[in-house]
């Protein structure tokens, strides 16, 4: 087996590993005699789905999409992409209960990261909608659910593959009448205004997210565009349709020069984005793809960040620590580190039984930052301290630079997780560059 150079979506810290694409549980089980980690579509931003010198299990061989039942329950191979699932599901009147910002994720990856979407304040993360899963660990294959070994079932949610390789899962889909979302858009001149509006009326919407400009300081610090929406009922549209997503028509074919995304160009982009949004719009129909997955229109857009890549910093803080969001944006704009419009959203209840699941009730902010500025590592370390002080945490699916000590402070149930992992993986075979960097899961890391 030859070696392949692998990195995350941010294209930082690559390593070489052998890659195996098993198409049966038996084939997978046979490979479980050496250090290994599962990989889906490689959309984790950092080093979660790579293992230098080890074995990486490409889950694309588990690609079956079961029939969608009358109750909306569907059994899926872990390697099924959200894009392929939606192509089948939308025409039949079903939608995924939770979608991240891209369709280029696998079912296994969504569970491994315990992804959330624009509806977290109402519907929680994907963990809440998975009724069952098949997990292959060095101890053998297991069927898990909230009643069948719940400890391991929940420990796997957000564990970035460290409890085993998921081969299949059943997900409870939600019914939709059309492929459109009715979207309300509103512009806000500063952060406090948008946050208080979200607190006041988010509950009235299924989907809600705000884009915040982190590069403007002064009176307009944190100016934002708030978009909120509901699935459009057939009665609201003249000609209702249910079409699956279209594949991307554009792609970035080469690495842009590293300096392309600089403070000047990013500021200009933010300005354009902000001005392009209507001051206020009501119930505008948008198709599902452009509402949920705006960046999927351009393939390989991460190459725009050039050879050195980029990091995404996503953290959440409890509701009581809302002022931390303001302080974080102040720190960023003061440090003049270039960052694209950040994504701000409110989280509803988390999954407390899942020790490594990211969401907790409160606020989350996500920023894309090009690697390059010398002060960036220090600024993010300072943000870590701020987040820890506020009782918050950073999302492992996005992380590429946390330290072991800060992860331990952010995820207090880490030891409980290590005990569960020890039970199914006593020799610590399941590991990744991320788990070794953060010393997750065992004394060995």
């Amino acid at each position, binding site marked *: 087996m030859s070696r392949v150079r692998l990195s995350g979506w941010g294209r930082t*810290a690559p*390593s070489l590993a052998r890659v195996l694409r098993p198409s049966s549980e038996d084939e997978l089980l046979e490979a479980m005699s050496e250090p290994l980690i599962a990989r889906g579509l490689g959309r984790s931003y950092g080093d979660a789905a790579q293992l230098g010198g080890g074995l990486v299990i490409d889950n694309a061989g588990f690609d079956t999409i079961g029939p969608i039942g009358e109750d909306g329950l569907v059994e899926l191979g872990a390697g099924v992409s959200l894009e392929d699932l939606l192509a089948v599901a939308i025409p039949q009147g079903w939608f995924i209960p939770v979608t991240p910002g891209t369709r280029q994720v696998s079912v296994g990856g969504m569970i491994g990261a315990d992804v959330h979407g624009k509806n977290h304040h109402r519907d929680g993360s994907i963990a809440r909608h998975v009724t069952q899963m098949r997990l292959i660990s060095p101890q053998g294959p297991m069927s898990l659910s909230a009643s069948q070994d719940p400890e391991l079932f929940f420990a796997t949610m957000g564990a970035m593959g460290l409890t085993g390789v998921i081969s299949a899962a059943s997900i409870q889909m939600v019914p939709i009448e059309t492929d459109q979302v009715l979207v309300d858009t509103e512009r806000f001149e500063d952060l406090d205004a948008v946050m208080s509006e979200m607190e006041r009326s988010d509950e009235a919407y299924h989907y809600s997210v705000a884009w915040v400009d982190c590069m403007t300081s002064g009176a307009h610090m944190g100016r934002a565009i708030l978009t909120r929406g509901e699935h459009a009922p057939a009665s609201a549209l003249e000609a209702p349709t249910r079409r699956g997503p279209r594949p991307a028509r554009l792609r970035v074919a080469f690495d842009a020069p590293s300096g392309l995304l600089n403070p000047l160009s990013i500021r200009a982009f933010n300005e354009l984005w902000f001005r392009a949004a209507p001051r206020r719009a009501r119930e505008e129909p948008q198709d599902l793809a452009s509402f949920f997955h705006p960046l999927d229109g351009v393939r390989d857009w991460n190459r725009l960040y050039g050879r050195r890549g980029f990091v995404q910093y996503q953290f959440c803080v409890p509701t009581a620590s809302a002022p931390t969001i303001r302080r974080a944006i102040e720190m960023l704009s003061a440090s003049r580190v270039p960052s694209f419009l950040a994504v701000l959203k409110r989280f509803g209840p988390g999954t407390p039984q899942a020790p490594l699941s990211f969401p907790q009730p409160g606020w989350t902010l996500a920023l894309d930052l090009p690697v390059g500025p010398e002060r960036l590592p220090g600024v993010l370390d300072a943000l870590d301290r701020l987040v820890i002080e506020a009782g918050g945490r950073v999302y492992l699916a996005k992380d590429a*630079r946390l330290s*072991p000590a800060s992860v331990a402070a952010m995820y207090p149930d880490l030891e409980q997780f290590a005990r569960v992992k020890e039970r199914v993986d006593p020799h610590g075979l399941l590991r990744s*560059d991320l788990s070794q960097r953060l010393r997750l899961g065992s004394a060995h*890391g």
Partner: protein
Amino acid sequence: MDNAFGQPQNVVVLGGSSDIARAIVRKLCAARVTTVVLAGRSPGLLEEAAAEARDYGATRTETVLFDAEEPSHAGRVVAEALAKVGEPVDLVIVAVGLLGNQREMEDDPVAAARMVTVNMTWPVAALAELRARLIAQGRGRILVISSVASIRIRRSQYLYGAAKAGLDRHCQGLADSLAGTGVTLQLLRPGFVRSKMTEGEPEVPFTTGVNEVADNALAGLERAERVIWSPPILRYVFFVLRHLPAPIWRRVMDR
């Protein structure tokens, strides 16, 4: 494990009591490094360097003893040092070197040969072992401390300069051989640095201190520069100096 910013969490130093290496380790510990393995000849100096690393944030330090006059043991030394890291190694700094007093050595066959052994042969042997082990890891970085003395040889330091030149050129080929392996090798070429190695030597223009060299080294590591000059301007200074006619070169450098 290296993070997105190229900040290592563990480091192995071959030549662990080198002043430049110690300065780099101090700065690495202040960032992310928690495990430091130091290999060198003098237990006392290594312990001193290890204590310093702990002061700057290392939570685990280990030492390995070796003699750079014994290249046949270099492979074993590297294996022992990497084993003591206890996890995949992020960064190995090769800082083995001996400047010595040229006037006393230049007519002494044993001393002259020793300069090549310590400055080139031992590091080359160690690099062969490192290459194989890091490639097996699928990632990892090597920083080799060369010198601007290797770029144009001075009459007053030709034993040192020539041995470093051999190492420097060897590393350029080795770096090329690593393309596509996930492993990288970078060369650090400091100018004249005030340190215990150069004590008593007359200073030249662009003389720096070890902390400045360490700053340049860290910036170069983050940017993955193939050759890191310290101070950076020496890249251009030596572009000129290496093309000077010999009589002028002698007059400029060895007044």
